């Protein structure tokens, strides 16, 4: 108990906890839209591109003689991630079939570019480790404020425009036919994903960023039937695993980012295993629609089974 108090009053830990909390809430919000759009891997693609941004920021910082040299790494990541997400969205729009191909090319280009540029900047690939796997213990007060601002922006747009973003993610064709600014809304989702990646970079690292956006949503959709609740459950799960994982690393020397992601996947496994049991206990949602049959059935057999109808429609 006193250990817990010690942790909460530790200024390093306080900053890290605030960052983890904010990232835990906002990453699943954006992730819900990505899963809805079947773009679960978008976060990974942006993460890889952000690595090039980190290295580019480093290179520029070194060239300008800034101290420390990586002071521009995070701004570089934000710029590269936003540019990358916009690029993916444009490619997705132009030729729908080549969307995953474009994503794959971004994966490779992002990592290769990052390693190449960091070498030019006078660093080694080892310098990138903190960005690849997170470095939440080194969060500064300025980092916390940046996190607060970006997470606030993500939540304001992600929740404030939920109905419109849902419409576009759910059925883009209908959204177009309703005259919605579909292009701008798609861009909004892409940019939100980019911002989330750069914010979560500190907590779990670029390689695991996407897990924080996607795994909580996978848990949420197991236990709910609605979009709103999926988002809610995902955010709660995100906060719980982020804060729990980080707290454990206060006592045990393991990588916070990896632990958070492993925890999330463990929760998913447990929920998925328990789901059939829980579903049975819930009041039954009759899967058979309460409508008359297509075919004439003798009254004696007039249960409500209408197999033909369910199968063909």
């Amino acid at each position, binding site marked *: 108990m006193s250990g817990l108090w010690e942790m909460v009053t530790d200024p390093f830990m306080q900053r890290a906890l605030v960052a983890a909390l904010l990232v835990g809430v906002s990453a699943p919000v954006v992730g819900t839209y990505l899963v809805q759009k079947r773009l679960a891997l978008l976060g990974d693609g942006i993460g890889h591109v952000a690595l090039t941004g980190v290295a580019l920021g480093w290179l520029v910082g070194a060239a300008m003689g800034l101290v420390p040299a990586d002071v521009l790494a995070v701004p570089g990541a934000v710029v590269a991630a936003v540019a990358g997400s916009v690029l993916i969205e444009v490619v997705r729009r132009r030729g729908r079939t080549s969307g995953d191909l474009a994503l794959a090319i971004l994966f490779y280009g992002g990592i290769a570019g990052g390693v190449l540029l960091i070498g030019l900047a006078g660093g080694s690939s080892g310098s990138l480790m903190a960005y690849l796997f997170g470095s939440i213990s080194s969060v500064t007060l300025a980092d916390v404020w940046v996190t607060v601002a970006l997470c606030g922006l993500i939540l304001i747009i992600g929740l404030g425009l939920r109905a419109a973003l849902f419409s576009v993610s759910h059925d883009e064709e209908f959204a177009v036919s309703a*005259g919605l600014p579909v292009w701008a809304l798609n861009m909004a989702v892409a940019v939100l994903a980019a911002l989330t990646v750069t914010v979560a970079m500190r907590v779990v690292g670029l390689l695991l960023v996407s897990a924080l956006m996607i795994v909580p949503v996978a848990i949420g959709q197991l236990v709910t039937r609605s979009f709103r609740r999926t988002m809610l459950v995902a955010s709660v799960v995100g906060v719980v695993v982020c804060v729990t994982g980080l707290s454990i690393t206060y006592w045990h020397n393991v990588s916070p980012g990896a632990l958070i992601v492993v925890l999330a996947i463990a929760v998913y496994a447990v929920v998925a295993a328990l789901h059939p049991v829980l579903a049975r206990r819930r009041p039954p949602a009759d899967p058979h629609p309460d409508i008359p049959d297509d075919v*004439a059935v003798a009254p004696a057999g007039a249960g409500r089974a209408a197999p033909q109808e369910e199968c063909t429609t």
Partner: protein
Amino acid sequence: MTSLATDSPSGAGTPPPPDDGVPAIEARDVHVRLGASPVLRGVDLTVRRGEVVALLGANGSGKSTLVRTLVGVLPATAGSVHLFGHALGNDVPWARVGYVPQRVSAVAGVPSTAAEVVASGLLHGRRLRLPRGWRSSVREALDLVGLADRARYATHQLSGGQQQRVLIARALVRRPELLVLDEPVAGVDRPSQEAFAATMTRLVADGMTVLVVLHELGELAPLVQRCVVLRHGKVVHDGAPPTPRPGHGGEAHEHVHPHAHPRTVQRPEDVRLADGPFERPDDTEDEVAR
């Protein structure tokens, strides 16, 4: 939102088109290419207010392409489309247009309830947030298609016919004056077809303008005033409903008359096993919904 459909004539049976000169849909010489192939080759189509027009044609004749072009989903490579007198774009009063796309069987990654899907129909043009009182609008729209008791069901829990009716409710929730439907009864079970015909009858009586893509007139035959037949991307017939080719007389059901009001729905005895959604009193529906 403007008040809608109140100024439309509600003459029973065949409502005369209001002659303020501006048709609901006016397409002139529309060409559409998808990839290299010309799908539409100079289509002219006018739908006046209050008209019920069926768009017929074989598979691949361009029916879906035409309606998707009319609502702005596909860009026309040549020609012009005006809705309510406005060229496609931001000037179109989108609140007055309701579009029911063909049902896609693929379920999206995140579950969504029928109510959530219908609510998304309340957004249009620059309205990006749900208006006040959206819950009651959604409930009314679901009630209109006989699914008030399914509001909180995930759409993937519904049957195909019910999913189709959710899409219709999504188009109706903003109270449009023009309804554009793409094969609303394709692959839909008979009860949903009947519920659909009953809903359409009521809407048309209230002055709704309808453009509907169909394979056969079926249950809608008594409502349809004009048929436009496409073949190879061109209009080959525009006028009275054509007689079906021999062997295609699919609409010759023995009970084709649409039902004047849902409460007086008469089903053929041989299919009646349980009470349909229309026959349940509203209050019990609400209880079920809660």
